[in-house]
Structure formats: C-alpha cells, structure tokens
C-alpha cells in the first residue's frame, strides 16, 4: 500500500497512438521509490484527446489519477501539453514532476519547469537518498561519468527509459480518478501529422547477432572490417550509432538507439561505440554483449559482458583470422 502524505509527486504519462508507453509505468516505479523517502501522494496525469481511457488503465497503479482531456489537441502538442500541465500543477503543486526522458518529455519539461519556477533535471537514472535531501543521478560526458545533482524542490525530472522498474502490483494505490476538460487549442503551433519516416529493417529486427559500428570506425576500411566480422556469424546484421548514419555510411534504418531501432539479439558486438545512453537504450536487451573500444573509460564497457580495450582496426582482423583459423582446423 502506498505511503500517501502531504506532498505530491506527479507522474506525467507518455502515450503515443492511443497507447501508454512502457516508460509511463517506469515513471510510476520511480515515483514509488521517491515515496520511500518523501511521504507523498503519487498522482498520475494523462493529457490528450483520449486521456480518460488511458487514465483508467493507469488509475489502479497510482494514488490518484488526473485525466486532462484536450479535445482541441488530440495528439501530442507541446504548447497545449505545457500549458495544461502548468495550470494543473499550479492548482496542485508537486514537489517532483516526473516525465519521460524522450523526445516528447524533453519537448515540454524545460518549459514546464520555467512556468512552475522549478528546477529541471533530465536523463535521471537514479536517486541518492542522503541526510540532506534527495539527489539525482544522471549520466554525462557520453556516459563516462555520472553527475549527482542537487536540485531544490519543486523539480521537473525527466527519467531515462529503462532506469526504473514498473512498480510492484502490491504497491497499487487508491485509484481515485478525476477528469477535467480543457478546450485550449494551440495558438502558435499547428500539428501537421505524424508520419513514419523509416520502415523497420526486417534483417536487423530478426538478427540473432548484431555487429554495431560507432564513431571509432574512422575509415571506410574499418566499416568493411565490421561487415566482415558480421559475416562470421549466422543471421547477423550490421548496425551503427547515430554518427555513422549521419555520415551516410549506414542507412538510418540501421541506427540503434533512442530514436532508431531497439534490438535484443542473442549477441551484440559493439565496435568503436562510446556507449552514450541514447545508444544503450536501443541495445541493452541483448543476451550477451562484447565491446571493442580503445578508450578504457568508454561507457560501453559498463554495459558489456566482455570488454576488449583495443583499436578495432587492429583487433577485428585478428579476431576474423582466429575464427577462420579455428574453422579450418
């Protein structure tokens, strides 16, 4: 049972195409973790054209649920979302407002913080409960280090997907639901529609092994080595991090990460990938991970089962040779 109290922790649900995104449940998990330190009521807030149905789905997992129906902004609109949330949170001030660290949450969170006079900490991946308050852990410098942030409440916190677990069903709250209707229409923005820019890549989605190239792949020859390495495995696909796709060396369909593909192969071999959160979010479900990077402090080694500190241009030819040699004997 939840430990409701005088304070409020607000969770802003993220939904897309009429469905709650998994991060919404993780936000509730994060709120429950904060609740162990701060006696508070966890209120889930859903904004959108179809807010009521989604709020009903969330209600059993929160202490209270607020559905803000916006019939004049059916799909996500940052202007309307920010305005109605600021209004709701002015009426019901929250010590912490938890939003998703996604292209949607990051779109409205800073403006919401400005309107509420709150701090804004993004990419939060953990809390540190200390004598003098609650601190927020977030990765910086390509994931090599973690900044532990002190922020005064009220604070808007954008929570990194995958950082918190869904709450235990036994932590279910009271489930009281309030519905309000806000007729605000966007005045200075106009939604022109969401379209699919990239078709999912079937070969990548079905691959059992993904060999991925990152910024450490400096030359076309290095990319050829990555392809040659992938050819050693059956059902393998070559993928990459954003810089490689921006450079035109791999199609965007092969980009693994937050705005690219999410993969969960049996084996993921990261070649010259730094391991920033934006990439890791797309591959952390892999069964077994090996990473090759010449920087011993590269963040990718924090999410790898096997670490090879080496230049991929030197390592991969020897690895290919070792596999081929073993195949012949």
């Amino acid at each position: 049972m939840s430990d409701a109290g005088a304070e409020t922790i607000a969770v802003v649900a993220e939904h897309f195409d009429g469905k709650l995104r998994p991060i919404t449940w993780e936000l509730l998990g994060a709120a429950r973790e904060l609740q162990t330190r701060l006696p508070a009521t966890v209120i889930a807030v859903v904004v959108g054209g179809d807010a009521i149905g989604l709020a009903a789905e969330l209600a059993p997992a929160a202490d209270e649920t607020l559905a803000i129906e916006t019939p004049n902004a059916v799909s996500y609109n940052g202007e309307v979302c920010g305005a109605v949330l600021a209004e709701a949170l002015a009426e019901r001030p929250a010590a912490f407002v938890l939003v998703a660290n996604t292209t949607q949450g990051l779109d409205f969170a800073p403006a919401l913080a400005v309107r509420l006079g709150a701090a804004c900490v993004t990419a939060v991946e953990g809390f540190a409960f200390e004598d003098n308050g609650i601190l927020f852990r977030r990765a910086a410098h390509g994931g090599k280090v973690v900044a532990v942030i002190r922020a005064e409440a009220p604070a808007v916190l954008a929570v990194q997907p995958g950082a918190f677990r869904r709450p235990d069903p036994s932590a279910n709250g009271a489930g009281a639901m309030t519905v309000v209707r806000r007729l605000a229409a966007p005045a200075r923005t106009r939604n022109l529609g969401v379209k699919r820019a990239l078709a999912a890549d079937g070969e990548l989605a079905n691959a059992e092994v993904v060999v991925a190239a990152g910024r450490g792949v400096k030359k076309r020859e290095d990319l050829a080595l990555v392809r040659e390495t992938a050819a050693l495995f059956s059902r393998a696909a070559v993928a990459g991090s954003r810089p490689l796709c921006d450079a035109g060396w791999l199609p965007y369909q092969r980009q693994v990460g937050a705005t690219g593909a999410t993969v969960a192969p049996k084996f993921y071999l990261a070649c010259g990938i730094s391991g920033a959160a934006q990439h890791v979010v797309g591959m952390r479900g892999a069964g077994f991970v090996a990473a090759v990077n010449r920087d011993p402090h590269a963040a990718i080694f924090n999410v790898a089962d096997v670490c090879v500190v080496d230049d991929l241009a030197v390592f991969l030819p020897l690895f290919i040779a070792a596999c081929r040699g073993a195949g012949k004997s």
Partner: protein
Amino acid sequence: MSTKSGRALRRRCKTGNLKRRRQFKGTNRVKILVCAKQTLDPEAPLRFTDGALALPPDDADYFRLNPCDAQAMETALTFREAGGGEVDVVSVGPPRAARAIRRAWAMGADRGFHLLTAADEFDPLAVASWLAAWARGRAYDLILTGAMSEDAMRGVVGPALAAQLGWPCATFAVEAKASSAGDAVVVEREIEGGFRDALELRLPAVLTIQTGPRPPRYPTLTALLRANQTPLAVIDAATLPRPARRQSVARWASATKTRAGLTLTGTTAEKAERLRRILTERGLLV
C-alpha cells in the same frame, strides 16, 4: 563585434560561405540567432577524484563546437540562403568558448557574441535566462540551437529559452523551412520508433536541431583566419539577470555498471582468440 566589422568580414572573404548573402531576394528574410556551446569531446580524457571532475587542459583538441549546434548553424545558413536575412551566433561560456563562437562565425555568421562567464555554468536554466536576456528586444525571428550538448546531454537550454521568451518551440528538428507565407516555420521533429512529427510554428520561434544527413559546412581557411582575427563582442554574463540557482552538481561519480564486464588481457591476438573461445562456448559462434 559590431555590425560594421561583420560586413567588413564578409567583404574580406572572397571565397566560401560568407559571400552567399547577396543572392537573397528578401521575401522570407529572417533574423536568426544561433546559440552555440563549446563542448568537451567525448573522447577526451576525463578523471574525477573525490567527487570533483578534472577537465583536460584548455586544449583545442578537446574542446569544440557542439556538433548539434554546428548543425543549427548550418540550418540557419540554409534559411539565410533561401530567403535572405542575418545570422548571429552567441555563446555562454568561459574565455575558451570564444573558439567555438569563431568556428560558428567562420561557417558564415554575420556577428558573434560571447556572454562571458568565469567557468562552465551547470544550471541550464541560468544559461537560458542569460540567452533570453540577450535575445529580448533584438528582433530575432528565429532562435536555433542544438538538440543537446554532447557533454552535458541535457537538452534543456533551448526549450527553456523559448519559455522565458514566451515563444513556441520545437525540439529535435531534422527538417525546417520557412512557410510559404513567410510568417511561420514548418518543422519535422524526429521522434522515437522511426516516426517524424510535423508541425508549423508561428514566428518568432525557437527550434532545437538534431544532427542529420546534411553535415555542417566546413569553414574555409580564409574564413577561419578572418574570424580568428576579428574581435568578438564580449558581454559579462554577470551583468545579465538570472534566476536563483535551483540546481548544481553535488559531486561526480562513476557510471553504473550493469553487466559483469570481463576485461580481456594479453596481446591483441590473445584477446581475439579468447573472445572467439568465449563466443564458441556460448554457442554464439559456430
């Protein structure tokens, strides 16, 4: 740096991007401000002891113009080429940040401004306040900045700046062009799952720009040399209003390890053989 010397800079540059302004027809003229940050290259050595982060020395190899901000600069220049107008670049940062401003300037900006701080400012809302104070009253139509800096990775300054100015904002933009009427921008935001969210924003507006397939232009050597020789307009950030500090770094810590991370040792050939064996034992390599 005054407008006059900006023009002089363009006149002096016989080649490269700085010359293109003359082609503009003036129908969609926009006055653009690009907010650029000098960032630490993620490959730079980084150490922390007792919770304090030791940045590498002030070295041109380690500090550079944030890649997304270079993309924002490229977008601004594309707007100027399409419809005419002006592009200013501004950066908040310590003295070394001047190099990033000069780099952006050499790409083809008309003016460069440095909001000088004693050290790197870790409160993004303070940075946004300074930028808002600077931009207010200067009649910009469009403010562009990178979607995120590659060192702090926060993505807060752009949208917070928009909120402080009371302007609409679109984040993670990968396409941006002037509307046919010229009073709005049409933007495509890159969102999760291979989708794009298209929207129109009335000017003035703030866009945060994501890197994409059109790489930022490379400044010509002449433009770089000229930019390096021209004095920047420097404004002491302490003279600009800022909100009370609401957040700060309490300490720096090691990144969390989520997997075992067995580090292979020996020669490169030995490591290659070891990895082959591990994968074979796991049935991943047959």
